[in-house]
């Protein structure tokens, strides 16, 4: 069998997918016992969710404002600036909200998860748990994985909300679109299907980001360079996977 060093990139890619898949199955088996420990779970929702709030809210505001500016500029060329509410609502809810939240989540919470678990590996904390007959998958990995899945849709919802406020700030307050028209257009365009798409996307992205972050940390080389490399891999793999999954899910919901 070729060693991982001599294996081609394709083989290495297949090996990694296999490793993540096996890890995912083992993790899922530990999720039920992890749910029975609400304190651990709440701590992780706080770590991944609450601590990402500021960056999510700031980004949401600016993305919404840019959407308002660009949307207004484009729509007013056709005399359709009244549709800004529709464009902002659908765009934020189905695309920008879940995708940008997930990318920020991977950069903020994903890297924190990977480096935390990687350092626990490097300092023998995970081995110590195994020696105390406590499965680190159950105690460390599963609560962090579940915490990420729960936090992502909440963060995405907050991002969308602040983003809509940002778009309204530009469209209504600055460009003087009639507020009644702005909100009624949005109300008329955004469907239940859009909301479902947004929630499904953020749940899937949250699962993917958390899985990659926990997997990379758990299997990080127990050195400073190894933990650094694992953190980088988390951001790169999560970002690519988010965009790939976004395409698949968008196609599925059309």
């Amino acid at each position, binding site marked *: 069998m070729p060693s991982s060093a001599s294996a081609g990139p394709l083989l290495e890619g297949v090996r990694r997918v296999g490793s993540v898949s096996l890890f995912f199955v083992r993790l899922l088996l530990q999720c039920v016992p992890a749910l029975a420990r609400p304190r651990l779970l709440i701590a992780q929702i706080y770590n991944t969710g609450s601590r990402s709030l500021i960056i999510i809210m700031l980004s949401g505001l600016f993305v919404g404002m840019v959407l308002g500016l660009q949307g207004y500029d484009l729509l007013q060329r056709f005399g359709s600036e009244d549709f800004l509410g529709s464009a902002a609502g659908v765009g934020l809810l189905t695309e920008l909200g879940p995708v940008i939240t997930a990318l920020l989540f991977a950069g903020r919470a994903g890297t924190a998860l990977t480096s935390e678990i990687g350092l*626990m590996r490097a*300092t*023998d*904390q995970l*081995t*110590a*748990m*195994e*020696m*105390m*007959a*406590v*499965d680190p998958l159950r*105690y460390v990995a599963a609560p962090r994985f579940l915490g990420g899945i729960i936090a992502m849709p909440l963060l995405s919802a907050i991002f969308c909300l602040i983003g809509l406020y940002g778009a309204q700030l530009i469209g209504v307050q600055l460009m003087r679109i009639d507020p009644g028209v702005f909100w009624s257009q949005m109300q008329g365009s955004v469907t239940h299907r859009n909301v479902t798409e947004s929630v499904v996307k953020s749940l899937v992205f949250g699962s993917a980001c958390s899985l990659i972050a926990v997997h990379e940390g758990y299997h990080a080389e127990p050195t400073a360079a190894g933990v650094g490399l694992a953190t980088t891999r988390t951001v790169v793999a999560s970002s690519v996977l988010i965009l790939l999954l976004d395409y698949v899910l968008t196609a599925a919901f059309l």
Partner: protein
Amino acid sequence: MAVPAPVTAGAPDAASEAVVDVRDVHYSIGGREIFAGLSLQARRGRITAVMGPSGTGKTTLLRLITAQIRPERGTVRVFGEDLAALNSRAIYQLRQRMGMLFQNGALLTDLSVFENVAFPVREHTDLTEGLIRKLVLVKLQAVGLRGAAALLPAELSGGMARRVALARAIVMDPELLIYDEPFVGLDPISLGFILRLIKQMNAALGITSIVVSHDVQELATIADDSYLLSEGHIAASGTPAQLRDSGAPAVRQFMTGSAEGPVGFHYPAPDYLSQLLKEDDA
């Protein structure tokens, strides 16, 4: 290096009493052979010392005994169970009967000293909070750190962290205690204290102990049986006194800490002078 004949008189031979029984184990990492037919036993209620120069696989041996890794050949039996035949659930059950002190303490950094010691109790028992509190305080008192219960691991010195880790290792009253380099970096007071504690636990509770270290003098004061590990084999075994009196050059060199002898200090390398000159030319 020629492997000297083992000092066999007084060496552990009653495998039936062995809590840990390692037989003809072969193991290599990255093509480098760490063990080539290693055999040793740790007998019930005794303190077994495993000594050897750095890089001889002492920590690897502990990882084999605790089923963190599996040998390529040979058997490792703990409490009479062949580790190779056990699934992960059975291994976890077996580990509940063991305690291990890690070289760096390996305390959980997000938990306080108290919670670190309480961790295995909370995970494996349904004791009331009051009982857990008493149990943890008793163990922390035993290592002299009851007053540090509220501190976080980051606020402890290396020696204190090791003592907390020892309290955590003994909190479940294990039958087998494994110490990985317990004396490194301890001040003389802590060192004497830990030595006495290991001896007392062994005498009072009948705990079987395996102590892996290269601190010959310290080990000699507490060990009942000793093994000297060298180049993948047991170079010598017996009581500390027998090892000290051994005529075998490698054993004598290790026990006296001499630079002269068959065990080289330098890692294999090309000729020093020619390498220096070659690099100058380059």
